[in-house]
């Protein structure tokens, strides 16, 4: 029975954008440490891929890899995918209500409509455009990690879009050890798309591969805030092992079941 293995790609987006490299700014985890994966929690993960083969030499079980990118300092990927849009709408609704209340105070002596407007403007936040051709799923309000709107002054607190894997290449793919592809998922919390690969476990060895990861940097272009895509790469490896299947009752070939002479009481 094939096992599905998850590889979490945790990116420190702020540092990666500053240093323009993922080297040292990415942390990789998988769920195969008990089968020999090494480098868990570092950028040097080598994922153990246990395989097996039948007595005639054919492949006994394939393995499936799933890459799940995540980021430090972002809204967690486990919140529903409509969260960003809903928060933007909620903030706008609240601003409209505040404006209505402010309009009602127009004739109240001593009220300062200008200060009230400035206050609302600071809470309604700003928007960032999606760069032309960019894959960022956002084009809406800038939110911080708590889901509140961020105005121009506080861009350091902006919650960056989650990292996106755009391709998986390298030796393991060239050698046809693994066959990666992007899949759509009905899963509402992982944003619908993920990279996955089936692995040919018939050829043992250690194979390197490269993940192409797109981050997004908030820049000012033509007076507008824009999420500019930044493409970086991250290397990792798989170590494929393979062993023969055997009959668990006999330790070797097929035989009669070890049933006692008399039925159990």
């Amino acid at each position, binding site marked *: 029975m094939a096992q599905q293995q998850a590889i979490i790609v945790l990116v420190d987006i702020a540092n990666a954008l500053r240093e323009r490299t993922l080297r040292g700014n990415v942390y990789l985890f998988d769920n195969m440490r008990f089968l020999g994966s090494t480098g868990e929690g570092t950028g040097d993960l080598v994922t153990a891929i246990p395989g097996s083969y039948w007595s005639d030499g054919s492949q006994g079980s394939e393995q499936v890899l799933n890459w799940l990118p995540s980021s430090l300092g972002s809204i967690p990927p486990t919140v529903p995918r409509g969260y960003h849009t809903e928060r933007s709408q909620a903030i706008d609704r609240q601003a409209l209500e505040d404006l209505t209340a402010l309009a009602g105070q127009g004739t109240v002596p001593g009220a300062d409509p200008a200060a009230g407007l400035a206050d609302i403007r600071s809470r309604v936040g700003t928007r960032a455009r999606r760069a032309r051709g960019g894959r960022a799923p956002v084009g809406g309000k800038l939110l911080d990690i708590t889901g509140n709107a961020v105005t121009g002054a506080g861009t350091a607190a902006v919650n960056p879009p989650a990292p996106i894997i755009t391709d998986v290449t390298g030796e393991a793919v060239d050698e046809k050890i693994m066959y990666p592809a992007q899949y759509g998922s009905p899963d509402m919390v992982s944003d619908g798309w993920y990279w996955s690969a089936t692995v040919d476990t018939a050829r043992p060895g250690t194979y390197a591969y490269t993940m192409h990861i797109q981050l997004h940097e908030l820049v000012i272009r033509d007076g507008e805030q824009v999420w500019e895509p930044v493409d970086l790469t991250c290397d990792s490896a798989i170590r494929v092992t393979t062993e023969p299947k*055997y009959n668990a009752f006999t330790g070797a070939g*097929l035989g009669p079941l070890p049933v006692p002479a008399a039925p159990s009481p």
Partner: protein
Amino acid sequence: MKPQVNIIVLVDVVGALSERTLNDGNLSLVDDGQFDSPGQGTTRLCTVVSPGQLVQWTAVAVDVQTPVEIRSITFLGSGDAALEEPDAADAQDVPAHEGTAPDLKVWSGFVPPYLVPGAPYRYRLELQMHEGPNSVLHVDSPALMSA
């Protein structure tokens, strides 16, 4: 007569590890034999077989990302050592697959000719779920019965 009977061992690993039991709906046994085995979908499956048939057990995890495998299948004798509780220290042993690949064991064998027809031969089914001190759980309720 069908040459082979498959028994699927369907495990809710998260449920079993959380409640530390394979009962209460965390384990479901189903077979595809031709004799209407009683207890389908429960831990009390009594698979009805004929002498000479090949029986194969296969573990399937409900959540595909949680590894589970059959650690052992032991037929219970008439009140002998096989019925004793497994040694606690033994259950905490290094998992049998440590350092080796899972999916190596194939649990299958022929039904011997000497079974008494109509009498259930119960077996202990031990499952290994990932690793750790409570990762091995078992049930004694399933059985094979000769038609």
